[in-house]
C-alpha cells in the first residue's frame, strides 16, 4: 500500500473544500442539517449546563455575619485632656480607636472596666454604632471613686465592651497593652497618691 493514499478520504483529510452535495432535494437536506445542528447545539448546551452546575461552588446556606467580637478591633491611642463636666471630678482620659473589619455595623451598647473603685464614661456615650470598614475614635474617662479599692498598678488592664451586631451581643475584653497599663498606673498614683493600698 505504500505510495497510495486512503481509498476513501477520512474525516478531516480533505484538502479542498467540502465534497459535492449528495443527490436529493435541497430543501430536505437543509432541514436535516438544521435538525442536526439544533440537536448538537442542544446537547452542547446541556453538557455545558451540566458541567457548570457540577462545577459550581458548593451550595451553602447564606454565610452568617461574624460574631461582633471577631469583627472589631479596639486599640489604645494616647492620653487626652479630660472633658470637663459640672458633676464629675478630675479623671484619666485616653483615646481608643474602634474599627469594624467586616460584617454588618457594630453597636457598642456598654463600655465598662472591671476594677472596683473606678468608674468609666465615654464620649460618645454608649450606645453608638460604627459602620464596617470604618474607624471611630472614642474618648474614655476613668475616675477614681474609692482609692482603697482601686488597683495599684495593673499589668494588663482591659476594658469590657458590650458589642452587638445582627449576629449576636457579646461582652468582650480588650487588653490594651503596656502603654495603657503604664498611663493608667501613673494616673492612679496622681489621683490617690499613697492612699492606694
Amino acid at each position: 500500500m505504500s505510495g497510495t493514499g486512503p481509498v476513501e478520504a477520512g474525516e478531516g483529510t480533505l484538502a479542498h473544500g467540502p465534497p459535492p452535495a449528495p443527490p436529493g432535494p435541497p430543501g430536505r437536506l437543509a432541514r436535516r442539517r438544521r435538525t442536526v445542528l439544533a440537536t448538537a447545539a442542544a446537547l452542547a448546551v446541556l453538557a455545558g449546563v451540566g458541567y457548570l452546575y457540577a462545577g459550581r461552588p458548593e451550595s451553602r446556606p447564606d454565610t452568617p455575619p461574624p460574631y461582633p467580637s471577631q469583627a472589631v478591633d479596639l486599640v489604645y491611642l494616647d492620653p487626652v485632656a479630660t472633658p470637663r463636666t459640672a458633676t464629675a471630678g478630675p479623671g484619666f482620659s485616653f483615646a481608643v480607636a474602634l474599627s469594624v473589619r467586616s460584617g454588618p455595623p457594630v453597636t457598642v451598647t456598654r463600655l465598662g472596666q472591671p476594677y472596683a473603685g473606678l468608674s468609666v464614661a465615654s464620649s460618645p456615650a454608649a450606645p453608638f454604632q460604627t459602620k464596617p470598614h470604618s474607624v471611630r475614635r472614642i474618648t474614655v474617662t476613668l475616675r477614681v471613686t474609692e482609692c482603697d479599692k482601686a488597683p495599684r498598678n495593673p499589668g494588663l488592664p482591659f476594658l469590657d465592651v458590650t458589642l452587638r451586631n445582627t449576629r449576636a451581643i457579646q461582652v468582650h475584653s480588650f487588653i490594651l497593652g503596656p502603654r495603657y497599663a503604664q498611663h493608667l498606673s501613673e494616673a492612679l498614683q496622681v489621683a490617690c497618691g499613697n492612699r492606694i493600698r
Partner: protein
Amino acid sequence: MRQRSLIAITAALAAGALTLTACGSRDDDGGSDSGSGDGTTVVIGVDAPLTGDLTALGLGIKNSADLAAKTANKQKYVDGVTFKIEALDDQGQPSVGQQNAAKLVADKSVLGVVGPLNSSVGESMQKVFDSARLVEVSPANTGPSLTQGPDWRTKKVRPYKSYFRTATTDAIQGPFAAQYVYNDAKKKKVFVIDDKKTYGAGLAGTFTEEFKKLGGKVVGTEHINPDTKDFSSVATKVKNSGADVVYYGGEYPQAGPLSKQIKEAGAKIPLVGGDGIKDDTFIKLAGAGSDGDLATSVGAPVEELDSAKKFVADYKAAGYKEDYAAYGGYSYDSAWAIIEAVKKVVDDNGGKLPDDARAKVTEAMQNVSFDGVTGKVSFDEFGDATNKQLTVYAVENGAFKAVKSGTYTG
C-alpha cells in the same frame, strides 16, 4: 455518513462532558492524599507527645497537621508539591524532643516542623532547628522566653529566627487569668501551685505577679512532683491556708487529681489553670467536684469562629479517631503556615524548590499571612502570633463552657 458522524461525535462529547462533571461532583469523597504525582514531596515534621499522659493533646496536634497537609494536596495548593506528615513522639520529655529535632533535621525532605506541645520540649529543640535553618511553628508553646528571650520582662530579644508559634504567650495568659479571678470571680486569696516545669512555673509566675498587683493576696505556694498522683499533703495545706481559690501552673494529668484531692480535703474552692488543663480529661480525673473550676485557653471559642466550624467538620469527615483537642485549630494553622511559606518559595523560584529551601522557607515564614482556622494568622518581629485571643472556661455540669473572652491589642 458525515451527518451521522457529527451526531455521534456531538453525543459522545456531551456524554463525555457529563461524565466528567459527574466525576467532578464526587470530588469531595476520599482521595485526600492525591498529590501532584510526579512532583516533589515535602515533609512537614510533627513533634508532640503521642504516648503517655498528654496523648490526647499530642494526637490532636498530629491529626490536625495531617488534615492541613491532605487539604493542601487535595487542592493542589502548591503546584508540583505533595505534602506528607512525619510525626515523632517526644513523650513530653525535652531530651526526647531534642533527639527528634536531630532526626527531622537529618531528613532533607523536611522543610518545616509543627510542634511541640510543651514549652520545656520547645526549649530543647530550638537550637537544633535554628542551626539547620529549619523552621518550627509551635501550636501550643506559651512560655514567653521562647520568642522573647529569658529577660522578656525587661528586655525582649528574639533568640531564634527559625522559631514561630500560633498560640499566644503566658505573658498574657497569666495576667488575663488573674484579672478574671480577681475582678470577675471576686477571689482575693490564692494558693499557687506549680509543677516546676518551664510552662507550669512560668504561667504560675505571670498569674501571681498580676494577682498581687491587683491587690490579691497569695496565702501559700507549693510545688508538686508531676510523677506522682498523691497530692494529699498539698491539699491539706490548701485547706488550712484559708485560700478562696487555687491557681495551678501545669497540665491536666496532675491538675485533675489535684483538684479532686483538694475538694476531698474539705476546701470547696475552685482550681484555676491555663491551657494545659483545658482538656476533657481534666474533668474526668477531677470528678464531679470540678464544677466551678476554671481554665484559660488560647483563642476564641470554636462556636464564635466560622472558620473553626469548617475545620471541625473537615476533621470529623476525615475520620480521625481522636479528638482535635485544645490545639487542633492552632496545629492546622501552624501546618498551613508552613505550606504557605513553601508556596511562596516555590512561586518565587519559577515553580521549583531552590537548593537552600529550608533557609528560604524560614525567611518566608516571617511574612506569611492568611485567614486560618483561628483567625488571621501572621507573626510579629519575635515570631509570636499577632492574633492574641484568650478565653476563660468554667466547668459546668461536667463540661467546659466559655465564660469570657479577651483580645490583646497592645
